[in-house]
């Protein structure tokens, strides 16, 4: 006999209320970052010139701009999920834990917003 309600069963979200979505989000973003990360490392390694003009020209190419948008958004998401688990594991006081999680979330969203705006500004000006 199960004491779970029919609604609880069909939603499948468990006691943490978010089911396996955190686990899946981390894995899916990890797979994307395997490709995006290797692309970015390769780009950094083969770029001979990091002057302002060269970097702006490189980011201004549509393919690079789109890949950078995907990279920064996915990286921000993956980083947020990872830092969230670290905070949940090591910060025990409930109030401080909530504050730290909130701070981490704000910082991650702000970083992604800054990165997206920067890439779009360079890309649309080029």
């Amino acid at each position, binding site marked *: 006999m199960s004491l779970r309600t029919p609604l609880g069963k069909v939603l499948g979200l468990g006691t943490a209320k978010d089911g396996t979505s955190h686990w899946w989000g981390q*894995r899916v973003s*990890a*797979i994307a*970052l*395997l490709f995006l*990360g*290797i692309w970015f*490392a390769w780009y*950094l*390694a*083969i770029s001979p010139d*990091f002057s*302002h003009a060269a*970097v*702006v020209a490189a*980011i201004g190419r549509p393919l690079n701009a789109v890949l*950078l948008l995907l990279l*920064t958004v996915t*990286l*921000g998401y993956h*980083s947020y999920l*990872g*830092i969230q688990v*670290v905070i949940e594991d090591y910060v025990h006081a409930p109030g401080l834990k909530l504050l730290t999680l909130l701070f981490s979330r704000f910082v991650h969203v702000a*970083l992604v917003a*800054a*990165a997206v*705006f*920067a*890439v779009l*500004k*360079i890309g649309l000006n080029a």
Partner: protein
Amino acid sequence: MSNYDRPLSPHISVYRWPITMALSILHRITGVALSFGFVVLVAWLFDAASGPDAYAVFMSVMDTVIAKLLLVAWSFAFFYHLSNGARHLLWDTGRGLEKRQANLSSWLVLVATIVLTAVFWWAAS
């Protein structure tokens, strides 16, 4: 009522560290380090978008010895987290979890990390 001096069940401090344990915590440490590296990546994009003056300030900061050492550390952390992350994805399919396999793949991850980091800096130089 004090809880401080009660005996505890065996915890990580009583074990001799197997390589899998060391690599497990290194995955978390490199992940946190890379989150701080993300800030630098965003600063690079943001300063590039802000114009040549802001970008010059960013590049002068990155030209210091400390920043260069951090870049080497971040590249190592990046290739470690990438290699070990790929191993985690393999583990998620249920493969490679036997003790001998996990020990072997631990060494493979370390070798891959060192090779990738070396190739990266060789290509960049």
